[in-house]
């Protein structure tokens, strides 16, 4: 076709396309033609003066949840959780492992949120090693955790320590699995 004719048809096509797009655009925004809009109102009950007002029997609608269901734990439950997590040590050592520090950070947060609570740290050892030395080692384990909690901002007046040495194992068996569980600091909330 001739250049003139092509240009004419091109321009026409573009105008049509743009118009279509414009229409679709406006329609897409949700602006409906006026005749399509209907006002939707919630059902109302016409109250007639003579009639007894009956309680509205609305079938139990599911609760409107804004988030997935979270039950806020009671303080008692939080304390149980706090007390349920121990920190563990290597044989004949009282240095804090990285996992222990993380656990202590969580405990520190809890203690900060509840300034009225005090904690007692119980240091323990496995049955290997001798009793007198283990009393001392248990004390050092408890003290290591205490020092770290103080470092994290908990007042030392809120923390006490006690060593049970090897006298109170949580697992009485005689194997490494039991021993590793017994080399622990246990945390008890006082004044609960």
């Amino acid at each position, binding site marked *: 076709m001739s250049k003139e004719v092509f240009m004419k048809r091109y321009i026409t096509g573009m105008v049509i396309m743009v118009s279509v797009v414009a229409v679709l655009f406006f329609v897409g925004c949700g602006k409906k033609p006026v005749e399509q809009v209907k006002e939707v109102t919630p059902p109302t009950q016409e109250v007639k003066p003579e009639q007894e007002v009956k309680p509205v029997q609305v079938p139990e609608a599911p609760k409107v949840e804004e988030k997935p269901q979270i039950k806020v734990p009671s303080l008692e439950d939080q304390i149980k959780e706090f007390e349920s997590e121990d920190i563990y040590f290597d044989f004949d050592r009282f240095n804090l492992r990285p996992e222990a520090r993380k656990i202590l950070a969580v405990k520190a947060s809890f203690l900060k949120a509840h300034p009225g609570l005090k904690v007692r740290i119980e240091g323990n050892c496995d049955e290997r090693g001798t009793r*007198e030395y283990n009393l001392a080692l248990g004390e050092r384990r408890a003290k290591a955790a205490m020092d770290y909690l103080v470092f994290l901002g908990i007042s030392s007046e809120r923390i006490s320590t006690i060593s049970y040495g090897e006298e109170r194992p949580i697992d009485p068996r005689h194997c490494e699995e039991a021993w590793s569980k017994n080399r622990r600091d246990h945390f008890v909330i006082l004044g609960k």
Partner: protein
Amino acid sequence: MLILVVTTGFMVSGARMHVNIASPGFSKLRVAMPMFSGPSELASSLWKLARKDIEISGVFELINPDAYLHQGPLSSIAPGTLKDWNLIGADFVMVGKVDLNDKDVMLKVTLVETSTTNKVVDKTYTCKKEELYKAVHGLMDDFLEESIGLQGIFSTKIVCVADNGRSKQLYICYPDGSGGYHLGGLGRLVLDPAWSPDGSKIAFVSYKRNNPDIYIVDLKAKTTRLVLSFPGLNTTPAFCPDGKSIAFTLSKDGNPEIYMMSLYAGSMSRLTHNWATDTSPCFSPDGKKMVFCSNRGGSPQVYIKDMSKGNVTRLTFKGSYNTEPVFSPRGDWIAFSHLAADGHFHLAIIREDGTDMVVLKGTGKGDESPSFSPDGRLIVFASADGNLYITDITGGTLVRITDGKYIYSEPSWQD
């Protein structure tokens, strides 16, 4: 096997034989003891107690009754029969006659040394029916003293911790395990007992006030007093030889350290100054030295402190874990718990200059908490099987003295 040379240094008298009880190749003195005569149940009980004490003595050995040419019960050694006892290799023959009246039991003993025909013991021992062991202890003490001039130890007492699964209590018994009883009312978790030098008091640790605190119970006065209750540890009490002060471990100054306190004046001094754990003090019999456990070198080891000069020297260099040192009342050996190459704890002994370390074979199951007999020849200790045993410094004796009824630990032998 490690051989040991130690002399007893005891005097020889005409009636006594000279025995180097710990020389290489020392063999025990052989005793023939036919069943005692008299009411059979009593006679048998007394005989069994005597057999146990012979075992524990460390110097005597009972010849199996099956080998006797004259079977018991025998109340006397018939004239002319001594050679028959000699024939089976007996160094001593002991016969006993048991009699009984309303309240007492009488054991008449004749004990003869076969080589000299001397009567070493010719005496009647009396006791109550419930305390048969007292007659036997009297007899065995006389036997030790009269035959070879050794100090009698059978009437001394051992205190330990007995665990019944619900609580840990102090338990006192004789070295053969007889006459045992609990000390009640001290708390539910009671540990670490130590005798006073005069045997009238016991220092111990109790959690009665929800903390490891040190108390002293006076067995004669029947009173208990709280002596140390600092925050943190108050543990490992040990009396000084003069009985007037105690040493112990406290952690109140930041880490476990050893301190000493006068029991009358209450004045306290600190004996260790080190970032490391220092614990388990024990004095030499003259009070001039103190052994203790410290991990200042990186692992728990035995150290010795000169109390006048103040210097501290490390004693143990073998093994990665050496703890709970105790001085012999003779001052010649220090015993301690040693983690051996086989991965088990064994008792070991060492000189105060760190030489001559000997590892004792023991039970092989895990032995700890040694405590010397008053004459420094025998050691009582706790095994991982929950029982107490007696051994001697040569390792040639090993006798279980408890019955497995409780879990026994931390024995301390009266001086």
